[in-house]
């Protein structure tokens, strides 16, 4: 029996102004019917280009050579008509960003049925029925209504499910999933992986799973190929790769994944707190549609209290939309709060006339390293800017010297001061962001998803750097992430947020070994480990569906259904052990 897909001696070149780039070098792989192949590598390793080029989706300046056989038929260099028929009916793709890969002005139903009507020649009515069944299959609630909605009305996880529905509806033999969960929250990621697993088991669809994260691949792949700089450096069964990696690079990738059992550092908090937040509330006015629409208050942060000591790290965890970034911005006075107090070194921040003078003491590192740097400012100037703004009296030479020193400290070559952000990699740009925050010598640093946009291996390096900086300077850290495993490496205490409120706050050791709140447990169970056997056997406590709308007053009572009769009731925090607070739940 011939393989479903057989790629041999495959090469991809790109002709750029600076010369040729050899993006894929002599890659060979096979995918059998109903099998899942995981392709792992860092950004820029050529893993996506490999599949795009194989199915004739190469950019105009690219050139592919070698052989690609689909069921024994050579498709490299096949006519566009043949490739169009093949893509969409035999082989389909799921891309990383579910928002940009759906057409914004077409209703979901129209987009799903488009491919079906094109490839299967059936009537519109029949296509509609099939589309609805498919949405049910990928577990989208109220499927009939969803078909009439536009992509922007759906959440990210929902959109990715629509993408999967589109990719599956024509009944393909092979689905190419290119980082399908990278842009999603961990809990949603777990749901999506669950659907892909069902596809493979129930419909016997072969899946090529492309990802930078070994954890994503672990539970799904039968075989794994590791790519680096365009070359396949190691391939084998999932168990071989995960339990007995031969190549150094594979070992490196595996080591970079935060271990679920890594011991959190002991807490060192003593004395008066540096920062105390009391009953902080931030709400945004949201106007209903129409001329006379009512304005309602969206409570992004709905009464959060916590304190932070010098040298301590507080991990803040929650899904998108739980208010963690809003909380950070309100604490740093980048957003106006609506109620509550933020006390810095014993003094209410409201009492300070000019908050700008205090910015030297608390700084922030943002999620997207490229977006948070001015594209038209050389990085040297970006790094020096806070220092110039906050201490304008400093002589130029001193500013330059300090910029160079901090660049060296965060692992950047000081000779790069004239480079622009687009000339650096994501990890390097995040180092620039760190340098910019650290140059003024802050007492507290807020990392708002500071490593979420980076490859797993780079994440580990940045987390290490942040930890070293903290050891040297006694910095207090608020480390925000949607991923419990990343937070664990750094945090002394962890706070779990759900829709703008704290559901659990505990020292790391307690939270990870003895989570009390069902939401924390769901988050923990969604964490992936690079252990295929455990992943396959794992029974997940999955949350179903999306986060409820924060505009719905009853959303707060999702975990306290017994109080649904009182929509204004807020679950109270109860202390279950020393320092371990849990919100009321059923």
């Amino acid at each position, binding site marked *: 029996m011939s393989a479903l897909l057989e790629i041999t001696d495959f090469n991809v070149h790109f002709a750029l102004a600076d010369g040729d780039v050899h993006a894929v070098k002599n890659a060979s792989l096979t995918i059998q019917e109903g099998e899942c192949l995981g392709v792992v590598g860092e950004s820029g390793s050529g893993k996506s280009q490999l599949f795009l080029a194989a199915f004739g989706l190469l950019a105009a300046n690219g050139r592919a050579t070698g052989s690609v056989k689909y069921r024994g038929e050579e498709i490299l260099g096949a006519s566009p008509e043949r490739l169009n028929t093949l893509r969409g009916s035999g082989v389909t793709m799921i891309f990383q960003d579910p928002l940009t890969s759906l057409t914004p002005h077409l209703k979901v139903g129209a987009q799903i049925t488009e491919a079906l009507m094109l490839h299967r020649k059936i009537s519109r009515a029949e296509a509609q029925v099939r589309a609805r069944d498919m949405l049910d299959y990928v577990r989208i609630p109220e499927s009939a209504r969803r078909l009439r909605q536009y992509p922007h009305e759906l959440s990210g996880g929902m959109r990715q499910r629509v993408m999967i529905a589109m990719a599956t509806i024509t009944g393909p033999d092979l689905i190419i999933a290119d980082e399908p969960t990278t842009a999603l929250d961990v809990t949603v990621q777990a749901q999506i992986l669950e659907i892909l697993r069902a596809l493979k088991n129930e419909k016997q669809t072969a899946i090529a799973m492309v990802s930078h994260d070994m954890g994503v691949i672990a539970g799904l792949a039968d075989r794994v190929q590791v790519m680096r700089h365009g070359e396949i450096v190691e391939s084998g069964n999932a168990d071989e790769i995960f339990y007995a990696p031969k190549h150094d690079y594979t070992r490196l990738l595996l080591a970079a994944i935060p271990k679920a059992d890594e011991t959190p550092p002991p807490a060192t908090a003593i004395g008066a707190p540096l920062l105390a937040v009391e009953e902080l509330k931030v709400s945004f006015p949201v106007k209903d549609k129409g001329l006379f629409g009512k304005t309602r208050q969206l409570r992004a942060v709905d009464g959060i209290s916590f304190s932070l000591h010098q040298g301590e790290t507080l991990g803040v965890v929650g899904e998108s939309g739980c208010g963690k970034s809003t909380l950070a*911005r309100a604490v*740093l006075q*980048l957003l106006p709060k609506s109620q509550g107090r933020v006390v810095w070194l014993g003094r209410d921040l409201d009492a300070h006339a000019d908050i*700008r003078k205090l*910015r*030297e003491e608390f*700084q*922030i590192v*943002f*999620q*997207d390293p490229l*977006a*948070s*740097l*001015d*594209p*038209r*400012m*050389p990085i*040297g*100037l970006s790094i020096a*800017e*806070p220092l110039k*703004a*906050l201490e304008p009296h400093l002589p130029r030479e001193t500013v*330059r010297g300090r910029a*160079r020193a901090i660049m060296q400290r965060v692992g950047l070559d*000081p*000779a790069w*001061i*004239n480079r*622009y952000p*687009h000339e650096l990699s994501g990890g390097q740009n995040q180092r620039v*962001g760190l340098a*910019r*925050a650290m140059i*003024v010598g802050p007492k507290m640093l807020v990392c708002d998803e500071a490593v979420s946009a980076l490859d797993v291996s780079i994440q580990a390096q940045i987390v290490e750097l942040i930890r070293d900086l903290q050891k040297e300077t006694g910095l207090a850290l608020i480390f925000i992430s949607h991923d419990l495993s990343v937070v664990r490496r750094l945090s002394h205490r962890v706070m779990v947020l759900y829709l703008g409120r704290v559901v659990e706050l505990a020292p790391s050791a307690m939270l990870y070994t003895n989570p009390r709140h069902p939401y924390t447990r769901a988050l923990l169970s969604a964490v992936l480990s690079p252990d295929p056997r455990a992943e396959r056997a794992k029974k997940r406590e999955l949350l179903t569906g999306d986060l409820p709308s924060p505009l719905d007053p009853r959303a707060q009572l999702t975990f306290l259904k017994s109080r649904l009769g009182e929509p204004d009731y807020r679950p109270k925090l109860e202390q279950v052990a020393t320092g371990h607070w849990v919100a009321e739940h059923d």
Partner: protein
Amino acid sequence: MIATGQTLKAVEEVKGRSLWVDARRRLLRNRAAMAGMIILALITLLALLAPFFLPFAYDEINYDIIACAPNWWPAETVCRAPGHIFGTDGVGRDLFVRVLFGARVSLAVGLVATLVSLLIGVLYGATAGYLGGRIDGLMMRIVDVLYSLPFVFFVIILMVIFDRNFILLFVAIGAVEWLTMARIVRGQTLSIKQKEFIEAARAGGVGTPGIITRHIIPNVVGPVMVYVTLTVPGLILTESFLSFLGLGIQEPLTSWGVLISDGADQMETAPWMLLFPALFMAVTLFSFNFIGDGLRDALDPKDR
């Protein structure tokens, strides 16, 4: 230890450059833009030095050679005017010297009014866009009100109040031209201020004026430059329109716009009267376009 000392020294030698220094270097490497600048400089120089090397004055009338072709003109003509290399106009004035004098007015109007509109428009638009909310609403309503004033009516009022003069022309044109610029810049600013790097600058303690001048304005340069290269030709034409109505430049002074509109009337009998001013204007506008493109590319660090 020696090694460390050496690296430190090497580090010391890399001097920090700003976007503007980089942009100048890139602009100097852009051949089309450099050619444009050289041509513009030549035309400007000729226009300024015209009275010193030409044997004719711009208002010297000679009824013996009315609408005569230059000596080298290839086609059959009624008469020839030896010594007048571009021929003569309808009252026998030397066309070459008049084209050069016209350049003075047209270039001045084009450049000064553009610079005025650039300065006011960019600052006003960036400020309105960045501050947002009520202030933005108020500032943009002022722009709307000014927009709604009829341009010609506005110029006539200015002329009536302040008497006719050359400077008023700049004021009138500049006062109208910055409005569009302000709108473009405001729109761009609204999208840029959502970007994370603006928030990063605020978190770094940079004040509002610093954010506008260091982060917003350099990032709106691209669309602004494209608009400017469209503005300069537009302004030169506006000036000729005003002059045609008798509100701009008065005889015997002239501008390219006036020369072209005169030449267009005589196109069939004396084509050189249209050809030469039009040629100068076209070359100038091309140069402006090349310079504009060059500036846009030079100010975009991604384009190397």
